[in-house]
């Protein structure tokens, strides 16, 4: 059952010259989507408070000195938004270049398409450009942390912390380009507060966090999403009734996700639902 929302006032916003009407409290991103405009997003998560850290979603808002992150800026009545102006496109292009030149985006969905669309050329920073490349952390049997792919979107930290899981096993450590996602003193997950709910994996937009099965199959070259089917069922471990989406390849469950639009669990699971598929 979806709880009834109190009726919300509608406001008028202009997106790329087109009038759109959205409920008060909507973000600029909501308005843009209502207008049928596709804007890239990376750090935005449909189940999380926007952190507006990646800046790939920036748009031009008339009267604003700087560009605005569409994912978090609230739409205001009379706002004039440009999603496709030269200035907004320029920033998006350079942000993609900065990311791709420092991070392995090979498993980030849509990255390749966006780079082509914006004409991003990360190679122009040269061979010597600093990167965050590092060996993957394989310290448990359930999931892998490959921080060479991490764009520091904060989503895993927020999912693990007070927004969902309340385990606080990971945090951003260090500062600036040296910042990383880390446990205390970078101890192994097995020595940390992690309870292996995998809710961080669920929200990671880059594949930096992945199921061990996926990680191993990618290493073997057998991971093939076109060969996978998904079925959504109800978890049978306890009475909560969480939805599980089982991803199956070659008759084997290769990973488990959970629908974000479930009004109770919002894509979150516990270790049993997420990783207990050995027994399904």
């Amino acid at each position, binding site marked *: 059952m979806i709880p009834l929302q109190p009726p919300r006032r509608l406001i008028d916003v202009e997106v790329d010259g087109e009038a759109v009407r959205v409920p008060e409290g909507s973000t600029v991103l909501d308005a843009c989507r209502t207008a049928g405009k596709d804007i890239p997003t990376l750090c935005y998560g449909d189940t999380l408070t926007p952190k507006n850290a990646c*800046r790939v979603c920036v748009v031009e808002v008339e009267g604003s000195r700087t560009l605005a992150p569409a994912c978090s800026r609230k739409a205001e009545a009379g706002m004039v938004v440009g999603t496709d102006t030269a200035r907004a496109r320029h920033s998006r292009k350079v*942000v993609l270049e900065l990311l791709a030149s420092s991070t392995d985006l090979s498993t980030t969905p849509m990255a390749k398409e966006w780079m082509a669309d914006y004409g991003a050329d990360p190679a*122009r920073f040269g061979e010597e450009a*600093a990167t965050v490349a590092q060996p993957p952390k394989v310290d448990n049997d359930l999931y892998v942390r490959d921080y060479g792919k991490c764009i520091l979107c904060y989503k895993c930290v927020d999912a693990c912390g007070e927004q969902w899981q*309340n385990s606080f096993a990971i945090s951003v450590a260090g*500062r600036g380009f040296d910042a990383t996602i880390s446990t*205390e*003193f970078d101890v192994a997950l097995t020595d*940390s507060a992690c309870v292996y709910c995998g809710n961080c994996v669920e929200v990671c937009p880059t594949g930096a966090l992945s199921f061990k099965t996926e990680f191993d199959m990618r290493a073997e070259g057998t991971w093939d999403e076109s060969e996978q089917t998904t079925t959504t069922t109800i978890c049978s471990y306890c009475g909560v009734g969480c939805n599980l989406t089982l991803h199956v390849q070659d008759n084997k469950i290769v990973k488990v996700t959970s629908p974000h639009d479930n009004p109770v669990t919002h894509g979150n699971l516990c270790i049993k639902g997420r990783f207990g598929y050995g027994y399904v």
Partner: protein
Amino acid sequence: MDLHFGDAEPTAEERAAVDALLGPPVTAWEGGDRTEADLRSAARAEQARDRLLPALHAVNDRVGWISEGALAYICRRLTIPPAEAYGVASFYSLFSMEPRPARVLHVCTDLACLAKGVRDAGEGVASPCLGLCERAPAALALEAGLPPKATVYGGSPAADATPYTVERPEPPVADAVPQAGGQGLVLLRRVGVVDPASLDDYRANGGYQALRRAFELGPAGVIREVTEAGLVGRGGAAFPTGRKWDATARQPDQPHYLVCNADESEPGTFKDRVIMEGDPYALVEAMTIAAYATGCRKGYLYIRGEYPRATAALETAIRTARARGMLGADILGHGFAFDIELRKGAGAYICGEETAIFNSIEGYRGEPRTKPPFPVEKGLFGKPTVVNNVETLVNVLPILLTGGSDTKLFCVSGSVGRPGVYELPLGTPLRELLDLARPAGRLKAVLLGGAAGSFVTDLDVPLSFEGTRAAGATLGSGVVMVLDEEVDLPAFLVRIAAFFRDESCGQCVPCRVGTVRQEEALHRLGRRRSDEDLVLLREVGQTMRDASICGLGQTAWNAVESAIDRLGAFK
């Protein structure tokens, strides 16, 4: 909260350092000895997140570094997840998460010291600007212990065989004020004249008259006078102070907080230090007035961790003022209650940003918050908050007494004969300031506003907020750094870029990666000219300016851009 603390135990010394700050633990749940009673009831520890930064300081300042056991003990005492506490501790450059010697020598390799010929840190660790630019080249030795020791070194190390081991008394603060004791000074008039430790001296020199006047005027009257005087913020953004105060005073949400921003870390800036060292009661009085006007009962004075003498002066001033009824429950018998808590930063320029400072005080990573909401609505602890710079606040004293001073403090350093803090009327041509400071060599350019500012060559530019803006520059925090023809401009620009790369909080991509790419391109350009790299700088620079979350990223390319456009760098 169900937290996991690991097995690491603190040493006796680490435990003592934390207990000295927080008091002994009451129950085993916070790391005390286990008693029978603990086993019968699960005590629910109060979360005291805002004690985190002081607790980290307590351990680091006493032991020299923060071990796993020490961090776990702090976390137990304050009910903080260890991963988060680690994230906070590792944010600050003055904290070490690895063993190191008790004494660490921080050698300034930043702009003013670079302009004086410093190339590297030698046996010390390279430090961003220490705010000792009038004594460049400068260094600061911090020695952990009970009590911790700080030694400031200034002047020419080259002339001295063992410059950073021989302790010499710090020169009096008035040495940093070439005009000290002279006519026409308003904000600096007591520096070098009063004994900074003496409240009586302060009162004998006009101290606490402005607060009496404030009590006569009432809060709204104070805000009116500040607004009418046209005071704008001196921390860099030049926002009208009266408007900020009025907006905060009107907020129904309670309590209201006052934060004095004494993080002063913009390279080349040292004016706030000079005020705090030379006239600390003025800041205490000014904070009291600001709090009275805006309805705050509690003020935080956030001072950068590299200012030992200013910190000591303020500790004395706050303690004395409290003992004499100038802070506390009933100030001067007017029924107004207000007190000040001093908070020490730990090496992070970004914590001077007006929302990062809240996170830092609250015990979170010093990352700027998204605005809106603005501090006047939701600031410290989510409550309406006034943040003001030290110089802004002390301007309120003359406003209430004589209608205002209309002067500004300028931090003059680099290639000049008389570096120091100057006080001149806003609008004074740059040339006049330089005449006072006596440029040493053949002048090449002046960096106005610090690393976040820009270069000018026109000496007729009026030193006012509008005048510098019209010239495509900014007064910023009042930095006037003079460069002569001898300066290695490419190296200077690389140092500016390195500063921003080091100090970026890392939250947003344009700044976190952009500052790295800017520095890399400048290194390449220093070796050979390249049109591609110039284009690259411009494109990355524009993106940092347009798409970064906060002022750090937004201004990280200003100086480099002006050097290319105005000084013909890399032509």
